[in-house]
């Protein structure tokens, strides 16, 4: 005779955590919403850190031959600004949006692997902390494994800031290698970025499986919101591009720690190989940063235009095409590296081709607004701002594909201007648009529109003041990554303007933070459907209940929620259905009081424990020649192994006193606990 206890092994290190509120509920959660919120806050804190680094850079550059920062500090600040903004802000805040919204937008109760989702969040957080732990552990002595050349180290530059990684976020070899970047700083960079990549790789698998397996009844692929489509595309990009950078970063770590000489020319290594590997990851990475924002904008524009997205299929296909082609354009970052004319011509053509689907998206967004009834909420302003600024970034992008022009422009401020137009004017505006739009889903309240308008206009003005002049600075010959320029170079005026602009951006961000802080408590209650939205995540109460949907939705069309509220007249104009208000009340009712018990992913200690072992291994590798380092590796591996073991032994779900056998409708493979009227 088998008993319940025998069927479900309970040999596990920890008892299942039981807190549903408070500190431990966040530490042990497997709820995609809590994980999304934590991702968002952490990413925003890193945004502030990267922003402060940017302000330091701008102060230094505001005048010729400035001595505000030393050369070492300046190099460290621009390296960490880039690394932070790419890996610790835009990627994780996109992960925050995808985590929180993806299940809601496909009508699911969670992602496919909730504990794995928690794991990727904790690895991200510990990876970020590991990267910045360089502030405490930076060791200017040569890396443990390889003898460095101490000749070009200035001990006076070993300030706190100057001790950070200083080889650029692109880590070009051999400058970032063992001989020209002695000290441990670039080891922290290589391993830190490695861990952050691991976190993204895990969540990419999770998102792909979620999208393919967890959609609500009737949510066909071509009925999915564009944001979900873009999430899928981004997840696939991550899946295929991250292994490349993982291998390249391991090669750097091996060069630096174990003398493997992959990129050392004197030993037959190839510094250009690093560039190919880095940009083979790095260019898809650009689309990883921008596509989630494009998804957000594709949700926001239709809602505030009161029209469906123009050419839904074209926008989806264009997004997928951009991603696919994104793997074939990497060498346009290397037009001046001495690659052959045939290669230059080929990559010029592939780069120009990618502008076509990008243009299709822009025109489709304009087509969406054309003839609409535009409501200029803050979210809409940011979305329109995104389109307008992305056009500028796109046009300057095409000029990079014109190889002879690019020989003049590459490595100048013209490039800095270009990618800030696509990443700040693009990605960041898209992110702000999304924050204003979906804030009610987290809090049940609206962000202040008055503060929002100030927020948008200060950011918009500050952004253009900062980055537009950089176009002219670059064309006047200002080289990137330079801490000084001589007074006779003629760069003073526009640099000063850019610095003023940077502080206006900072003011805009402060307005946003105040708005967020204030509206969380005192914002206007949003109700269930504040924007008269089109997609299924607005059919549930705000803030989102823990179980998402009281009743799993059934989808009958694209923009399903809109069609539940509106029919159309003979001219094709929407007419509110008489029963619309009743529908909303019903949704509210079933959202608050689910008619059936609901099983939710159970919390677990193991994801955070697993993730905590990883930075220990990282520190151990960096200090592996010492006994402490060896012990750290051992402890770290033991922590990871025991967490993995405990995790594998953890019951998928708690044994229940009642209806113990009634779980056949639940997806297997993850822990679920019950929630609902009788749980």
């Amino acid at each position: 005779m088998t008993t319940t206890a025998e069927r479900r092994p309970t040999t596990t290190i920890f008892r299942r955590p039981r807190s549903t509120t408070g500190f431990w509920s966040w530490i042990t959660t497997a709820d995609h919403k809590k994980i999304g919120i934590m991702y968002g806050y952490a990413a925003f804190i890193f945004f502030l850190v990267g922003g402060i680094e940017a302000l330091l850079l701008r102060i230094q550059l505001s005048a010729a031959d400035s001595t505000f920062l030393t050369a070492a500090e300046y190099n460290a600040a621009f390296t960490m600004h880039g690394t932070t903004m790419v890996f610790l802000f835009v990627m994780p805040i996109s992960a925050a949006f995808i985590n929180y919204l993806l299940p809601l937008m496909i009508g699911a109760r969670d992602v496919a692997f909730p504990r794995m989702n928690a794991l990727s969040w904790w690895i991200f957080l510990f990876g970020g902390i590991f990267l910045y732990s360089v502030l405490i552990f930076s060791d200017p002595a040569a890396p443990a494994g390889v003898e460095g050349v101490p000749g070009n180290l200035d001990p006076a530059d070993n300030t706190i800031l100057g001790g950070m990684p200083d080889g650029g976020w692109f880590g070009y070899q051999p400058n970032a290698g063992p001989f020209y970047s002695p000290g441990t700083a670039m080891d922290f960079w290589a391993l830190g970025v490695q861990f952050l990549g691991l976190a993204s790789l895990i969540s990419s698998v999770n998102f792909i499986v979620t999208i393919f397996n967890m959609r609500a009844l009737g949510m066909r692929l071509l009925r999915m919101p564009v944001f979900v489509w873009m999430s899928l595309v981004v997840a696939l990009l991550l899946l295929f591009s991250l292994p490349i950078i993982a291998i390249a970063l391991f090669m750097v770590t091996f060069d630096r720690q174990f003398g493997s000489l992959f990129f050392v020319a004197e030993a037959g290594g190839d510094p250009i190989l690093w560039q190919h590997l880095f940009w083979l990851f790095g260019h898809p990475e650009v689309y990883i940063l921008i596509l989630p924002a494009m998804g957000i904008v594709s949700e926001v524009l239709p809602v505030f235009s009161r029209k469906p997205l123009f050419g839904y299929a074209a926008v989806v296909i264009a997004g997928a095409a951009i991603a696919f082609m994104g793997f074939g354009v990497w060498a346009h970052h290397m037009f001046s590296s001495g690659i052959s004319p045939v290669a230059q011509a080929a990559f010029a053509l592939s780069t120009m081709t990618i502008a076509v689907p990008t243009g299709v998206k822009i025109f489709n967004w304009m087509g969406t607004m054309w003839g609409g009834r535009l409501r200029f909420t803050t979210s809409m302003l940011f979305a329109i701002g995104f389109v307008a600024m992305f056009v500028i970034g796109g046009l300057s992008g095409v000029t990079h594909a014109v190889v002879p022009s690019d020989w003049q422009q590459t490595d100048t401020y013209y490039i800095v201007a270009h990618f800030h137009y696509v990443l700040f004017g693009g990605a960041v505006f898209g992110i702000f648009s999304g924050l204003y739009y979906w804030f009610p889903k987290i809090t049940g309240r609206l962000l202040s529109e008055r503060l929002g308008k100030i927020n948008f206009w200060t950011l918009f003005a500050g952004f253009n003041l900062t980055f537009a002049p950089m176009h002219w600075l670059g064309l006047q010959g200002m080289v990137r990554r330079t801490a000084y320029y001589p007074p006779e170079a003629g760069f003073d005026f526009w640099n000063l303007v850019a610095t003023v602009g940077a502080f206006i951006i900072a003011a805009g961000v402060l307005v946003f933070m105040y708005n967020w802080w204030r509206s969380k408590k005192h914002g206007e209650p949003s109700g269930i459907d504040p924007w008269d939205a089109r997609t299924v995540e607005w059919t549930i109460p705000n803030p989102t209940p823990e179980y998402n949907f009281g009743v799993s939705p059934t989808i009958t069309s694209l923009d399903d929620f809109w069609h539940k509220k509106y029919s159309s007249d003979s001219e094709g104009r929407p007419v509110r259905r008489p029963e619309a208000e009743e529908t909303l009340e019903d949704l509210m009712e079933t959202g608050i009081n689910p008619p059936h018990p609901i099983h939710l992913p159970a919390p677990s200690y193991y994801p955070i424990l697993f993730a905590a072992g990883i930075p220990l291994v990282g520190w151990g590798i960096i200090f592996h020649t010492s006994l402490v380092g060896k012990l750290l590796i051992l402890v770290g591996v033991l922590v990871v192994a025991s967490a993995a073991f405990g995790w594998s032994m953890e019951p998928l779900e708690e044994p229940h006193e009642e209806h113990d056998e009634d779980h056949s409708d639940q997806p297997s493979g993850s822990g679920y606990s019950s929630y609902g009227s009788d749980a």
Partner: protein
Amino acid sequence: MIWRQVRRLIRPFVKWGTVLSLTIFSLAACSLVEIEDAPLTTFEPAGPFAERIDAIFWQVFWIAVVIFVVVEGGILLIVLLFRDRKGRKEPRQIHGNNKLEITWTIIPALILTVIAIPTVQGVFELTECDDDAMPVEIIGHQWWFEYRYPELGIETGSVLAIPVDREVCAFMTSADVLHNYWVPHLMGKRYLVPGQETTLKLQADEPAEYWGHCAEFCGLSHSLMRARVVSMTQADFDAWAAAQQQLAVPPEPDTPAAAGLKVFQEQGCTQCHTVDYGPDFAGTNLVADELYNGPNLTHFASRNVFAGAILPREGQTHADGLREWLANPPGVKPGSFMPDLDLTHQEIEDLIAWLDTLQ
């Protein structure tokens, strides 16, 4: 309410912020047309290759301007036309229009094809050197450029001399990390890669002096790795080359210059620096070890800038620049391989007197 008053105060500034940024935008657009006193500008091509690039740039630029005006104007128009006003009807729910979508896929593709033609032509015309070009070797060092003329047997640094109206083919490599050679008036950039050889075509129309800069991040003092190119008529160039091929002339005994040479030898400067007095010179070996290659100083005084073309600063004499440099090289250029030798005031003055003899 206080808030309302604050809002009334802020509102004009918010609007003004936009106006201001638009003004800056248009000002900047004007400055694009006329840039004065920017020695690194890409808008004053002074040779056929830079001119070719400039022509391609402007072709693409004006196409981009047209697209910019059409698209941004379109966005502005949409925002003005379709903003929600009282009495505005609910919009028709249009899901798309195949003809329109195909049109705005094909038109950009055609425009890009137009741009692709000069691009590909330019790449093939401007990448590889002519067979009869004058060869020059450029070697990147942290943080200065070394120049060698293999056919003339000349070694120099910081300043590249070239004849006008003749294609110069730079064969480039690096002694340490990646560098990127850029003289915007003459040509675009090309990397200097350790262990590899890259080539770059250069040509100047008129005798003049051009600024350059290392464009790839190359470590601590990347900001201070600059370059100069001096173009001269063929006759002047031949005279320059003949002078450079001469051996250095030893200073008269018991002069400050002789004392300077003694400092140079005793402080170990010869470990990195070569001064070619020839085999008959009765002194120590003044040929540097290949491993620690500093600039060849045989004709140091013939160069108007030194230390990676950062000194002398504007308004500074050559001697003052040297005083600043010799007193503390890593203080001027952080991380410099040339150490601070704690030279006395007298030693520095003697060295300057001696360096002045290296014409």
